[in-house]
C-alpha cells in the first residue's frame, strides 16, 4: 500500500513545478542551475549577525551576517554556474553552535536530505540518486516541499574555546593565509550534498534498503575485478579498506584525468661521471616553486662549498660559479627550505636537491611557501645523498658530469592506477564517511573532493584544475 496523500501532494506539486519551470526555462545550451539559499537563522545570529566588519578579499559585506551569506553565495554560485538543472536547488542553511574545543572544531556539515530511486526516466533502475540529481533528471522538482541540501556551519569558530583564534576567512579570493577558507569548505560540502557520495554503508557493505547508489556503479576493485554492484556486502567491506585498489570507472573522469593530474615527480641521475650513483631516486616534492613537469629539466649537479653547505647564506663567488645554470645540492638544516632555494635561485641555479640530514625513507616533502621561487626543488634521503656525493668528488668548478633530470613520469599519473583511472580513498582501517566517497589523497594536484581539505586548493571544480564536475557528469548531472 502506498501513502496516497503524499503521492497526491507530490503529483500536484510536480505539475505546478512543470508550469513554473516552463516559464522560467533558460536556453538549454548554457549550463546553469539556480541555487536558492534559505537563511534559517534567527534574528541577530549567524547570517543575521549585525556586527560591523570591514570588507575582505572581495567580500563587500559590511556586517558579519552579510559576509557569511556572500561566502555561501560564492560557493553556491560556483556550482550553479557549473551544473545544469531546470529545478532550483534549495539549500536550507544556518550558523549554529557546533561541537568544538580549543584545538578542534566542526567547521560545518552538509548533505542531501533525501534520495530517490526508480523515478520516471531514471538512468539506472533500482539505484539511489540524491534529490537534487533526481530533480535534474526528471526535469521537475519531485518534492518541492523539502529542500535538497541542509547546511549547518559553526557560529563560534575562532572564539575562545572553539578553535581559538582561527575563524573562517570570509574573503572570496582564496587568500586565506592560516585561516579556514569558508568558500572552499562550502564548495566541498555542497559537493557531497549534490551527490558526491555513496549511500552504501562502508562498514557493513549493506546497500541502503537493498539498493546501490548510482555512485556504486562506478566503483571497480582491481584486486577482485568486480564492480561494487557485483559484490556481496562482505566483499564491499573488504574493498573499502583495500588500499589503492578501488578506482572510479566513469568515462568523463577517466577522459579528464590526463588533463588534470600530473605525472609522478621523478629525479633521475645519469651522465658520464654518475657511475654507481646513476638511477632513479626517491624524492619528496616541494610545496613551493613550480611542479615537476614533462619534459622537465636536466643539468649538472653541483655541491655547495663547506662554508655554506646548508645554503642559508647568500651565495659567495665560488658557489655562484658552481651553481649557475646547474642544480645545487644543498644540505638540510639551520634555515627553512624556501630560504635555501631562494638563495640558489638568486645565485643562478636552475634547480635544487635538498639532502636530508637525518636517516629515513621515503624522504618527506619540502614545506614552506614563497611565491617568488621559480625553480624546482626536491628532497632526497641522507643515504642517497651520500651515494650522490661520492660521484661528485671529481669535478671542475662549473661542471660535475653528474646529470640530474627533474621531471614528471607521465606514464604514471599521481593518484591513478595503471589504466590511469583515479583511485578512490580506501584507507585501512575504514574511515567512516571519508572512505570511498572521496578521491584518494595521492592525487596531484590536490583535488577538492579529497577527504583532507588542502590549503592549496583553488575554488575551481572543473578541468584543468579539478575532477569534481567530471564525476558529476558520470553520475548523471
Amino acid at each position, binding site marked *: 500500500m*502506498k*501513502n*496516497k496523500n503524499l503521492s497526491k501532494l*507530490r*503529483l500536484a506539486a510536480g505539475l505546478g513545478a512543470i508550469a513554473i519551470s516552463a516559464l522560467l526555462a533558460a536556453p538549454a545550451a548554457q549550463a546553469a542551475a*539556480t*541555487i*536558492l*539559499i534559505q*537563511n*534559517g537563522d*534567527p*534574528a*541577530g545570529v549567524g547570517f*543575521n549577525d*549585525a556586527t560591523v566588519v570591514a570588507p575582505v578579499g572581495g567580500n*563587500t*559585506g559590511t556586517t558579519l551576517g*552579510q559576509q557569511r*551569506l556572500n561566502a555561501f*553565495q560564492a560557493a553556491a554560485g560556483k556550482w*550553479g554556474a557549473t551544473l545544469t538543472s531546470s529545478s532550483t536547488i534549495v539549500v*536550507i542553511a*544556518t550558523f549554529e553552535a557546533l*561541537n568544538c574545543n580549543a584545538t*578542534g*572544531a*566542526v*567547521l560545518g556539515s552538509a*548533505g542531501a536530505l*533525501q*534520495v*530517490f*530511486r*526508480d*523515478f*520516471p526516466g531514471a538512468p539506472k533502475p533500482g539505484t539511489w540518486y540524491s*534529490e537534487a540529481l533526481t530533480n535534474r533528471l526528471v526535469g521537475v522538482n*519531485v518534492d518541492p*516541499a523539502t*529542500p535538497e541540501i*541542509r547546511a549547518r556551519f559553526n557560529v563560534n569558530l575562532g572564539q575562545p574555546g572553539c578553535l581559538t583564534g*582561527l575563524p573562517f576567512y570570509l574573503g572570496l579570493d582564496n587568500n586565506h593565509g*592560516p585561516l579556514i577558507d569558508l568558500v572552499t569548505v562550502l564548495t*566541498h560540502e555542497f559537493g*557531497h550534498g549534490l551527490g558526491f*557520495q555513496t*549511500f552504501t554503508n562502508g562498514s557493513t557493505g549493506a546497500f541502503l*534498503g537493498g539498493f546501490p547508489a548510482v555512485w556504486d556503479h562506478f566503483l571497480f576493485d582491481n584486486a577482485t575485478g568486480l564492480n561494487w554492484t557485483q559484490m556481496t556486502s562482505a566483499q564491499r567491506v573488504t574493498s573499502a579498506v583495500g588500499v589503492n585498489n578501488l578506482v572510479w570507472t566513469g568515462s568523463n573522469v577517466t577522459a579528464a584525468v590526463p588533463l588534470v593530474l600530473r605525472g609522478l615527480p621523478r629525479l633521475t641521475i645519469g651522465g658520464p661521471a654518475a657511475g654507481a650513483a646513476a638511477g632513479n631516486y626517491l624524492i619528496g616534492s616541494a610545496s613551493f616553486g613550480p611542479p615537476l613537469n614533462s619534459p622537465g629539466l636536466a643539468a649538472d649537479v653541483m655541491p655547495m662549498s663547506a662554508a655554506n653547505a646548508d645554503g642559508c647564506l647568500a651565495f659567495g663567488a665560488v658557489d655562484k660559479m658552481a651553481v649557475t645554470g646547474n642544480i645545487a645540492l644543498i644540505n638540510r638544516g639551520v634555515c627553512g627550505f624556501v630560504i635555501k632555494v631562494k638563495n640558489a635561485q638568486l645565485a643562478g641555479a636552475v634547480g635544487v636537491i635538498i639532502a636530508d640530514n637525518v636517516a629515513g625513507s621515503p624522504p618527506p*616533502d619540502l*614545506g*614552506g611557501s614563497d611565491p617568488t621561487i621559480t625553480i624546482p626543488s626536491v628532497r632526497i634521503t641522507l643515504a642517497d645523498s651520500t651515494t650522490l656525493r661520492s660521484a661528485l668528488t671529481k669535478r671542475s668548478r662549473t661542471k660535475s658530469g653528474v646529470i640530474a633530470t627533474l621531471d614528471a613520469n607521465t606514464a604514471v599519473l599521481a593518484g591513478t592506477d595503471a589504466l590511469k583511472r583515479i583511485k578512490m580513498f580506501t584507507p585501512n582501517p575504514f*574511515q*567512516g*564517511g*571519508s572512505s570511498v566517497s*572521496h578521491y584518494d589523497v595521492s592525487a596531484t594536484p590536490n583535488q577538492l573532493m579529497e*577527504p*583532507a*581539505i588542502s590549503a592549496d586548493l583553488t575554488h575551481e571544480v572543473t578541468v584543468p584544475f579539478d575532477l569534481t564536475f567530471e564525476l558529476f557528469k558520470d553520475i548523471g548531472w
Partner: protein
Amino acid sequence: MRKIHITRLVTIVGAIAVSTAAFAADKKDNITDPATLQKFENVRVVNVAPVASKPAQSSDNMRAFIDPETGALRAPTAADFAQAAPAAAKSKSAGPAARSAATQSSESAGPVSIQHADGSTSVALDESFMSYSVARVGADGKVTEDCVTGKDKMEATLKAPVAKAGVDRHEK
C-alpha cells in the same frame, strides 16, 4: 530499513506555527536583508522561519497518531516520529526551514522509505549521511581539515589526535 504504510496520520503543527510567528517578528530588525548582499550569478537568498535546533523534541508531544489497522488513537512509536517528520514537512502551513528541520528529526529512528504513486521510492536521510568538515590543530601548530560522514564519526574525529603530517611548513 522499514517501510511505512500509514493510511492516516494527523500532525498538529503547533511548533511550526510558533516558529512562523517568531519569523514575522524577526523581520523587523536584525535580519539580513537579501537586497543588501553582493549579487552572484545563479544564486538567490531568501529569509525563512528560523530553524529550531531540536524540532523533534519540541513537537513530539503535540502530535496525534492513529493506528493504521484500527483507526484508533494510540501512543506514537519511533517509526511514527520518523514518518511524521517528512509528513509535517509537507504541510502547507510550514515554512521551508521548519520543514527541513522536521525532516532531520528522523535521525534516531533510521531511514524510512516512502513509496510514491509514480513508482518511485524515496528515503529521508538522517544524520548518518551528513558530511562534516572537522578542523584540528596538531601539536606542531598545523591545522588539518578532514571531511567525515555521520555524527558519530565526526565526534570521534574531533577527539582523535592529529596524525603526524608529512609536510611541516616551518621545518628546517
